[in-house]
């Protein structure tokens, strides 16, 4: 990498640190989220494509609140 190019950018040493911090904390937050997230919520979300076809549900309308 051309050192002169990098030196010419003011405050360059902060940029990689900021990028790394954004990357690290975003994914740390994401990992924490998926570990701590409410099980029922995850279950309800994963069931979304599997909700019965409309014509099957028509006589017995489902209520999504039951699932959450």
């Amino acid at each position: 990498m051309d050192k002169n190019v990098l030196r010419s950018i003011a405050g360059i040493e902060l940029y990689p640190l900021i990028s790394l911090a954004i990357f690290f904390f975003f994914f740390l937050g994401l990992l924490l989220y998926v570990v701590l997230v409410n099980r029922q919520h995850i279950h309800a979300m994963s069931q979304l494509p599997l909700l019965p076809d409309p014509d099957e549900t028509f006589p017995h309308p489902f209520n999504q609140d039951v699932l959450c």
Partner: protein
Amino acid sequence: MQVESLPLLVAPKSPFVPKAPVRTVDTFFYDNKIVRDFGIATVIWGIIGMLVGVLAAFQLARPEVNMGTAYTTFGRIRPLHTNAVIFAFVGNGIFTGVYYSLQRLCKARMFSDALSKLHFWGWQLIIVSAVATLPLGITTSKEYAELEWPIDIAITLVWVVFGWNMFGTIARRRERHLYVGIWFYIATFLTVAVLHIVNSMEVPVSLFKSYSAYAGVQDALVQWWYGHNAVAFFLTTPYLGLMYYFLPKAAERPVYSYRLSIIHFWSLIFIYIWAGPHHLLYTALPDWAQSLGVAFSVMLIAPSWGGMINGLLTLRGAWDKVREEPVLKFFVVAITAYGMATFEGPMLSLKNVNAIAHFTDWIVAHVHVGALGWNGFLTFGMLYWLWPRLYRTPLFSKKLATTHFWLGTLGILFYAIPMYWAGFTQGLMWKQFNAEGMLQYPNFLETVMQIVPMYYLRGIGGVLYLSGVFLMMFNLYRTAKAGTLLANEKAQAPALLPAAEDPHATGGHWHRWLERRPLQLSIGATVAILIGGAIEMIPTFLVKSNVPTIPSVKPYTALELQGRDLYIKEGCSNCHTQMVRPFRSETERYGEYSKAGEFVYDRPFLWGSKRTGPDLHRVGQKYPHSWHYNHMLDPTSMSPGSIMPSYPWLLEQDIDYSTLPAKIRVLQQLNTPYPAGFDQQAVADARRQAAGIVAELKKEEIEVLPDKEIVALIAYLQRLGTDIKVKPEQVTAAAQ
């Protein structure tokens, strides 16, 4: 949209819902007709795209299969094949699946029937315009972005219509949280919009001709940022969204890990966008950009395999169904192909592997495992699952669908294995030195003739795969005939309460907040994809020392420019690179390696991505004019056994000088240092140079008129890579 109100429902008590407010239940109708229409378009364009692919494949073994016309010659139909398969087959496949699943995941009809129709017909019109222009040689030459500027604008408009319709539907949803499949659709929409707009920056010369706003190295970086992410965000993310919907549907069980799918989404979109420069390893692109591309490509294996494992494990406990159900068979092979291609991609981006694989058929094998396996098979499985549901009748023949599966699988093997073989063989032959330290195979043609049998086998693989698609077309047609299209499917769902009254609209961790806010989710996804692109591109554009200028490199003469545009028109860059990499095996074969500063006037860049023929960057002054003349008329006369097609029309057609002044003016606007007023002298200047070439040819007993296209092409080829051969004292003398 028709909405009926039904009696009010009160939700039963639940430990997780402390207060269950009263919600009305809406009755509404899903639009199945638009799904069916996109499905039909998928099949028809799939067949056309693959037919063109088979035609192109056999031309590589026997060039005379081009039927002797310019319009059906490899250089012009290869982009037609790639565009038809990517944007017509896969594109319509995406819309089929998105229009079906989005409505159901949002529990709402598409936002507007008029927008759906406009989207459908607009997209088909764009494809028709591609079919009409590419064989005519109307092309920008930038891979997967070959369509000229008026069509680029049309693509932008139709894409906005798609986004409008999609976000409108999301806004009217009856489900508070967005399923992970929809996140992938949103990321697809946003990123494709950004990629298309940035890469299509061009200045029009006429209705059918433009010059790229970027030149040389910068153009290459933007193009492969686009090209790689077209694979990522057109062929991968929307199909992952479809996988997350249709696989659980077909397997009748939820996705293995919804938690993993959340990690999968964010890590995939964040990392994918950086990987583009791995297409430019060992080229004149700055080293730091190449290294970034490699690092992120290697990281990419984690989210890709996370998604693949999530898909395959969804079938846990359902493998017995795979034996019976052709839909699941297609899905299993699709996901496995995705896993193989996404393992191979990071391996290919390692510089030592890339040194052998790049420019060979290995890359062709790699992309076809993705296209035929992942995209093709997921599409077929989805269509076989959808058709009986759209037409309310069982599939006409499961047996026929299973036959299609086996034909397709055999087709992939017959395609991929010979191409891997050809790639290894040729890549190693190019680099082989003998005991004396000389190239073992100095004649490029030797390395080509070795792999011609593989080209036949590859063509057979294509025919097998295509024959399976014909079976599918018949099967779907008979299914449709046996049933009746349920154009508007009745559905019911409780209306979404205003956020203030809905207990689900608050609470949960930060990401859950994001999952119910499409706007904020979109902003997050856009930021994730912009970071990588910006960090790679901005320094390459702004920092001059990234592209060191070379004083002896001058703009093309008027005639050379005309010749260059013919090179673009005939699609020469589909088979010939203009990038000598800094390997001894290449400098021995071609000459001095290519420097960034040599391409500063190249709009667009023409580095190419595949060497079916030799590199041409140092071909200038290597052969006499007569060699090129005879070679274009009949390549085998100069290179016995050559698989290059003949270009007799170049000897008959006149150079089109009508747009030359406009071309010069556009290039001047783009800072090409032509003298003021050169636009008015350009035609005369070109004719003067043409007369010189004609006189030289005459000395070798070749009679040709100076206005014929072959003269301009010879002028261009003879200029290629010669600027750096000028000695510094000559440059100084010229400057004085």
